[in-house]
């Protein structure tokens, strides 16, 4: 299919690239402790980009008729901007494990067993347990008129579970998920269950919120609010638009010297890993921040062409819409924190990642409300807590409700109080907990 598409586009334009993607999903929904629904989804489609007289045009369809697709892409190019996109030539791309045969071959009964086990182990009085198991098997092919062509098989398994506990008007929900290319093993399921149960158990007691400028441990999930401004600011597109506060600060000591952030598309067994990006650029590890200094920004073909740099291999595209730049696996680590050597796992360890032993009074923040609202890029944040724990004299004393945390990411990350020993995957991000000092905590 994609060969014909590129061939046809080549004869009618100055150059083209395309993506073809097929994905088959099998999903199970457990609601209130019982399996309620089983579903499958089969989807395929193609996205085409052509360059015609220096202008770029796009078209996508789930019902790809090559001639119609080329015609629509050419019509789109008539309106398009001039961009000197250079499609990458054929090159050796690394191999990376993106597909697991056992996961692809797993029967629906096997997937049911996984869900049932999780539900059984989470079941307790007065709580509602929901879970889902999803297995995705797919194939991606990217190709261009310069001769680059790469196909790879993919798989992913997601096991998600939540416990809801309602007592009067107090609503508590604790959620976690396993995500990997392959099936979870016994240890992975142990970690998933323990993660949910320990966060629930510590939340049963309500503690009064502290107030003031305090040390706060952000767990891997709590870190979303801290990471989001950096993710936006490290995009080459933001640099190009003149809105990234990090654009002019390359190689300066912006963050704590222990702070490192890498984009790594070559980690075996992660669903966001890939041998080439969606524009056929071979994948490579990219250090974004090293020793607290900004090193690189991510680029796709178009932003790279406009900025006069090379694509870093961060083109991402779906069937519809335009390729844009996006991260693969983001790995956050300090000098001595462990590497994500394995592609699997929810991670283990106690809440707080071993960072609360010396904490006299503070918070552990696991989830915040409203992350992503407001003016993210500037680094200032202010959010009510969704799930947070009070720490007093080195121990968790209960869940804190009705509190809000605020600060500025760029100020807080100048000094990191400690790196946790609880590194784990959360979606496509690996990180341990981080201890940050001087976070503003207010009660209400």
């Amino acid at each position, binding site marked *: 299919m994609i060969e014909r598409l590129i061939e046809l586009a080549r004869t009618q334009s100055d150059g083209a690239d395309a993506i073809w993607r097929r994905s088959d999903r099998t999903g199970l929904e457990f609601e209130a402790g019982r399996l*309620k629904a089983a579903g499958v989804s089969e*989807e*395929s489609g193609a996205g085409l980009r052509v360059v015609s007289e220096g202008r770029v045009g796009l078209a996508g369809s789930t*019902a790809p008729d090559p001639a119609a697709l080329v015609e629509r892409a050419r019509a789109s190019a008539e309106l398009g901007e001039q961009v000197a996109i250079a499609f990458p030539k054929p090159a050796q791309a690394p191999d990376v494990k993106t597909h697991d045969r056992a996961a692809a071959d797993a029967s629906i009964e096997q997937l049911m067993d996984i869900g049932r086990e999780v539900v059984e182990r989470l079941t307790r009085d007065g709580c509602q347990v929901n879970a889902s198991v999803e297995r995705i098997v797919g194939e991606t092919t990217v190709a261009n008129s310069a001769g680059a062509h790469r196909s790879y098989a993919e798989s992913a398994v997601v096991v998600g579970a939540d416990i809801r506990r309602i007592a009067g008007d107090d609503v508590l929900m604790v959620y976690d998920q396993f995500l990997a290319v392959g099936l979870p093993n016994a240890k992975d399921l142990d970690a998933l269950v323990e993660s949910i149960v320990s966060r629930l158990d510590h939340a049963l007691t309500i503690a009064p919120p502290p107030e003031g400028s305090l040390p706060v441990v952000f767990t891997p999930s709590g870190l979303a609010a801290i990471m989001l401004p950096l993710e936006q600011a490290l995009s080459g597109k933001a640099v190009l638009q003149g809105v990234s506060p990090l654009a002019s600060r390359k190689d300066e000591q912006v963050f704590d010297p222990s702070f490192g952030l890498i984009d790594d598309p070559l980690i075996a067994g992660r669903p966001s890993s890939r041998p080439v990006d969606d524009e056929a650029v071979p994948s490579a590890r990219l250090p974004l921040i090293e020793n607290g200094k900004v090193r690189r920004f991510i680029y796709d073909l178009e932003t790279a062409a406009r900025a006069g740099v090379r694509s870093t291999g961060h083109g991402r595209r779906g069937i519809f819409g335009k390729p844009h730049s996006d991260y693969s696996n983001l790995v956050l680590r300090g000098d001595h924190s462990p590497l994500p050597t394995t592609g699997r796992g929810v991670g283990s360890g106690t809440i707080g990642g071993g960072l609360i032993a010396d904490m006299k009074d503070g918070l552990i923040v696991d989830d915040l409300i*409203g992350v992503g609202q407001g003016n993210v890029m500037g680094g200032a944040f202010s959010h009510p807590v969704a799930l947070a724990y009070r720490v007093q004299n080195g121990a968790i004393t209960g869940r804190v409700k009705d509190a809000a945390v*605020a600060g500025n990411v760029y100020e807080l990350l100048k000094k990191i109080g400690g790196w946790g020993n609880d590194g784990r995957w959360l979606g496509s991000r690996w990180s341990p907990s981080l201890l940050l000092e001087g976070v503003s905590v207010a009660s209400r």
Partner: protein
Amino acid sequence: MKDRLTAALKASSADYLDIRLESTTSSAVSFRGKRLEAATASVDQGGCVRALNHGCGWGVASFTSLDELPRMVQRADELSRAVRLERPIRLADVAPQQADAIMDLDGDVRGVALADKKRLLQEYNDLMLGVSDRVVDTQASYRDEVTEYWFVNSEGTVLYELRPEVVISGVAIARRNGTIEKGLESIGLRRGWKSAQGHHEAFRVVAERAAALLDAPSVKGGAYPVVLDSELGGVFIHEAFGHLSEADFVYENPQAREMMTLGRRFGNKILNVGDNGAAAGLRGTLAFDDEGTPTRDTALIKEGVLVGRLHSRETAAAMSEAPTGNGRAISFRHPPIVRMTNTYIGAGQGTFEDLIKDIKLGVYACGAFGGQTLLENFSFTAAWGHMIRDGKVAELVKDVVLAGNLFQTLDRIERIAGDFRWNQMGGGCGKGGQFPLPVTEGSPHVRIEEALVGGEVGS
């Protein structure tokens, strides 16, 4: 197509089966700053089959290749039979419907050249860029679609619908040294090309506001009497209360059922809340939901008391209540789940001026950059705000973030003005991995006795 679908239905032995088929023709244009990002036209088509057998669970199969329809019907049936249930799933009765629901295409977007759509968006975008040299960046997007829609089920419902939609949005980013502010305009309509015209003023206003916010102080954090404008009032009731009214949150959970017992008092006598999927001409409006149930106006809170909730056929049967036509899916890629349509706070009495005249010091919170609810706790980021001083609207302030507890806040709604309006915004609602679902929110000005306003929390 109807014949093909009814033939596929007849070939199945499932106790209940429905088939939804969609073919969506869309076009999209986007600008970033002065630069056109893309102008494209797309076709997206596919279907979804749901099967339910007695003593079994749901079997669902979705697909993009229509040739696979017979195989997918069979697959859904098999999947249903693979899920054994002790307590069976029941569906509330809905009379079989046969209808062609052709909505007003209002200038069929499929007949308008892509170049004209680009030109229109460029006008809006240029207005934002031209406001001030402080406006350093913009993001503008135009998207339209017309969906041809078929729904059939084994009870005899056969529907054909034509559903148009236009969404136009613009973000103006103003910058002075290290300070960045934004303004957002967003229009979402279940209409066509004609209604996409003439929004120039709105785009200019948001860009001016973004530039003005650069000079505005942050609101000082604390508890204030707060007046919500219509847009924020609508977002508040959708996020903070609407989601709790979705019966799939309560129907399997005894504690949640208790919390949301009909008859419970949630607010003052002046508070009326509802969800109306049948309201004329709104983005969340449809003649039927994605289970073939006719939509309607459902009262949720009447004079402060909980009187109803939103249902799919399954949740309605489980709670022995009537189905409300709120089973919706964002596309053929998903099965329907319980969702809102057009959610509102009903009109009260008096004017905005009446509402604020006895507030000595308060906050007028306007527009919405976003809102999130985590069950009983919520956080809303207003697009901008004004202080209210001595009964009058005073200076512009920024960083107006409202946070609070739903139950306390509903209880503290003390005044509701008579100036109700619907806010037809773009974006949409997200739930269970299904985003963005077209919805509308409506509200008059609403006064909350006291609410926590963040922004500079702790300072």
